[in-house]
């Protein structure tokens, strides 16, 4: 079936968005120029630096290498989804406290890659954090402070989750589990 330029639908930061331009427009350009989400930066434009990192279905990707048609029907999260100046999220606060941002060009991408890691329950092991952030380059070479920021965010998030868990809470709503799907036969 030949599908020419149709209207594409994506979810950006929880909101449904429609795009009617060329299907091979870079996701980066749709975010910045169509939607005005200029938090996402362009560094190299060829997938080397990670400055344009956003989350696609929860995973870090380079938005300069994604034709918008491949993002259709999928969840996109940008740095604008994290927090506001008045109410920073735990990772942004950690970057601020630890000096994780210098010139700032890598920061939105660094935050998004690190956010996927922190949110996913990543450990505070510096080696694991460095591996995770290997696709994000910092031209100020401020890596040590960035790693410290992520460690600090991992710890604060753990503390706040633990507090939530120990706080008295309402009885959880029991939801019926969906019936297990029949397991695929393994040949």
């Amino acid at each position, binding site marked *: 079936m030949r599908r020419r330029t149709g209207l594409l639908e994506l979810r950006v930061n929880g909101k449904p968005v429609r795009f009617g331009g060329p299907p091979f427009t870079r996701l980066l350009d749709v975010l910045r120029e169509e939607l005005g989400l200029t938090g996402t930066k362009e560094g190299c434009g060829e997938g080397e630096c990670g400055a344009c990192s956003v989350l*696609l279905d929860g*995973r870090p990707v*380079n938005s*300069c290498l*994604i*034709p918008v048609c491949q993002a259709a029907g999928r969840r996109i999260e940008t740095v604008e989804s994290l927090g506001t100046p008045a109410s920073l999220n735990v990772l942004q606060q950690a970057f601020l406290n630890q000096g994780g941002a210098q010139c700032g060009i890598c920061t939105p991408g660094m935050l998004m890659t690190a956010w996927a890691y922190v949110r996913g329950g990543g450990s505070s092991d510096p080696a694991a954090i460095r591996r995770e952030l290997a696709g994000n380059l910092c031209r100020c070479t401020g890596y040590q402070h960035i790693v410290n920021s992520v460690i600090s965010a991992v710890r604060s998030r753990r503390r706040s989750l633990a507090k939530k868990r120990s706080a008295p809470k309402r009885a959880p709503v029991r939801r019926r589990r969906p019936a297990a799907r029949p397991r695929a036969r393994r040949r």
Partner: protein
Amino acid sequence: MSVLRPRSAAEALRLYGRNPGAVPLAGATDFMVGWNAGQANGRTILDLAAVASWAQIRATRSALSIGALATHTQIQRDRHVRRHLPLLVEACATVGGLQIQNRGTLGGNIANASPAGDSFPPLAVYEAVVEIASARGRRRVAFGSIFAGVKKTVLGPGELIEAIHVPIPRTPSRQLWRKVGTRAAQAISKTMVAGLLWLARDGTVSELRFALGSMAPSVRRLTKAEAFVKGKRLTREVIHEACALLKQDVAPIDDIRSTAEYRLAVSENLLAGFLTRQR
């Protein structure tokens, strides 16, 4: 330009058969670099992203079948691959950074046919078989015969890589993956090696498989050195001779990333280290 977006394998093969000039697209990580530079303008694109059946990894008792659209992240996380093909897991973890690993696919890596494809040395030593499909049928090509030169494969018009079959190897006595680049991440290799070694009870070599990437137009197995060490004990003299044979199976060049001399010296040292190392 127009984009073809097949929803199934059958539809993909039919569309590609009718539009053999189309550019097949998987994770787009390499294509978009050229596209952003204005290449491929006006070409029809065959976007395979929605062909879900080609993104699966299946295991049988004797082999793993990795769908062409399985991403490098998926391969690293799959428990069967982790258990049986650790060198492939390590190689996939060195492709670009996390962002590229989340998008790039094994089939795309092969179809791209870069001399520096990171997954190639492991696939060469694991003796993978590439399953190729077209609207006319299917055929299998040994991994060692899939490349026809720099950025060229033996895929014909209308043919797509469907899966990569890898026989589960018996547990080796030693194994090695090593990529040598300018930095640990986001680097294209100067040289890289994958090795599997099986020793007999008496300490002689029952089998050596050793492959090098970035050392020739496409990945190379060291057929001469592998045959030479078979049945021998790995004495200093045998290792020295095996390393001397290495250059007969490769053709390194000087380019922006390294020199032929450096590539050869490092590769010989990696082979020597692998053969010398005790368990």
